[in-house]
């Protein structure tokens, strides 16, 4: 088995006027999850469509399990499972019939296909709905069935295109658990998502793409580190002249005070016990605290926007600047990822 299950080099794809991919490179190590992260229209789905033999690249190469997706699409199809963004199951068949159809078309024997379908329906808690027509399924049930269909043949490589978009939190957690179980069994996963917390929770490596280009990549930890420190917000019961001085030694940079004098905010290093230290320091000078909030450097939307250039760039000139800045971020991350690779693997 090749150590890199998915390899992408210089992938380029244009749909009419839209440059969906403008030269994307990444690779996914065998048995790991890569999170392909980006806003709508960033090119995530295009990359997945090329790697799953649904679309042809204009330039560049994609290999799955060492096999070129353009030269040997049939061989690639024998090795992959796909759960696409739009549910791609037959709405007029039952859950069980859908799985049996996928099994049959993948040359599974009748008995093997039947047994595997029953096993998956059980695993994804769909046994009760198994013999109902798909039209009556909820969004979460459809997604789970889609995921089940994608692993019917126990493929070594799995492509999940926004597997939890539109799901309620409970269904989302269930899908996450299923993905973790698959990786524990040695499956390699390429996951696209718009949600940073999803990439954070699941992926070993994250590739951030926007406007068809990779703008950052690294482990979730590295991306968090690169995205700056946590933000502390304290609400006081009443304005107090000693408050700023009390917490100044604990924070990074200046402490901001709101106009009414009751809200303090500052950047902090996310060291352990920081909230306790802040409360103690304020208590020591007799300040009563109503609320304390610590926004961790999780890969939240602000960070995401700071990386992707967000929605602000409208002109080409702006684009160039944003991408230039982002590329230097990417460079830093690339460098540090080499250092951290061993640690992350363990």
């Amino acid at each position, binding site marked *: 088995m090749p150590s890199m299950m998915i390899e992408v080099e210089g992938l380029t794809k244009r749909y009419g006027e839209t440059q969906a991919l403008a030269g994307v490179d990444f690779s996914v190590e065998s048995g790991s999850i890569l999170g392909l992260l980006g806003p709508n229209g960033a090119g995530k789905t295009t990359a997945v*469509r090329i790697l799953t033999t*649904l*679309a042809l690249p204009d330039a560049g190469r994609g290999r799955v399990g060492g096999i070129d997706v353009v030269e040997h699409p049939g061989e690639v199809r024998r090795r992959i499972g796909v759960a696409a963004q*739009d549910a791609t199951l*037959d709405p007029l068949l039952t859950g069980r019939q859908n799985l049996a*159809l996928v099994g*049959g078309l993948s040359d599974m024997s009748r008995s093997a296909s039947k047994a595997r379908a029953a096993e998956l329906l059980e695993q994804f808690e769909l046994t009760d709905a198994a013999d109902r027509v798909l039209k009556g399924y909820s969004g979460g049930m459809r997604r789970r069935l889609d995921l089940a269909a994608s692993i019917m043949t126990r493929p070594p490589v799995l492509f999940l295109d926004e597997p939890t978009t539109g799901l309620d939190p409970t269904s989302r957690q269930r899908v996450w658990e299923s993905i973790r179980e698959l990786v524990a069994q040695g499956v390699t996963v390429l996951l696209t998502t718009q949600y940073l917390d999803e990439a954070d929770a699941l992926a070993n490596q994250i590739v951030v793409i926007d406007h068809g280009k990779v703008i950052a990549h690294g482990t979730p930890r590295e991306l968090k580190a690169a995205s700056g420190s946590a933000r502390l917000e304290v609400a006081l019961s009443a304005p107090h002249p000693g408050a700023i001085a009390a917490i100044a030694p604990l924070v990074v940079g200046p402490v901001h005070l709101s106009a009414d004098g009751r809200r303090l905010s500052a950047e902090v290093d996310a060291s352990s016990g920081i909230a306790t230290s802040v409360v103690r320091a304020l208590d020591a000078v007799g300040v009563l605290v109503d609320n304390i909030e610590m926004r961790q450097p999780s890969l939240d939307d602000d960070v995401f926007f700071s990386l992707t250039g967000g929605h602000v760039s409208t002109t080409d000139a702006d684009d160039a600047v944003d991408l230039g800045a982002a590329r230097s971020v990417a460079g830093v991350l690339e460098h540090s990822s080499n250092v951290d690779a061993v640690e992350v693997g363990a």
Partner: protein
Amino acid sequence: MTAATATDRVVEGRGRPRRVEAMLGAVSDVWFMTRRNLVHISREPMQLSDVTVQPLLFTVLFVYLFGGAIPLPGGGRFVDFLLAGVLTLNLVTSTMGTAVGLSTDLHEGVVDRFRTLPMWRTAVLVGRSFADLLTSLLCALVVALSGLAVGWRPDASIISILGGFSLVLFFAYAVSWMAACVGLNSKSPESAASFGFIVLFPMTMVSNAMVPTQHMPGWLQAITTWNPVSAVVAGTRKMWGNPNPSAMIHAWPMQHPIETALLWSLAILALAAPLAAHLFRLHTTE
């Protein structure tokens, strides 16, 4: 280049077992796709009204509406004349279902799923056409039974009668591949449906299916004489031993209706089937 050549040689080296395996795989894919389409029909049995209620109505209505009004050149009972026409009308217009069905498939995500599976892609089309052929058989049965109920009597051997049915079924099967091409090229299932009204309905009406063509103006008679539907209907009447006024028309297709019908069917199939496969590949390649 070298890599490609090396792979080719490998494939060639164990060519036979690979090809046999691939063929068995394709047969199994067609079987699964056919079954899928039959399940669709069982889910929405109203889809079957085209091949059950409609032929029943047409047979009964046309026999009683036109029965007394249209004298047949050369004599014979109108109901015996009509049945081959009604059968052809029903089977040909019901191929519209193939166009709509494929267009629907193409506009739903399910084809994407099929395309990521290691299957023979054209099985999507062949499976569809087989399922539609089975519903055509049902349609033929309904026409035959309702015909018998209103007085239709074939006058030929069982083999010849079945041959008449096969002639129409084969032609309708070929036309269903034409419909497949239309469905694959349509922007929506709704526009695929209009194919039935714009092409199929006139094609079956401007023929000898419902009325004898002898009284028609010369130009119209020329069209009906060379319309493939006329050959199919005349050939079926001949095989059923039913009145066939077209036999009095001195043109090759009407003198040799069975051969003409078979030639047309083969020609349509030979053109439309590869074209449909090509269109399917074209519309599912990005």
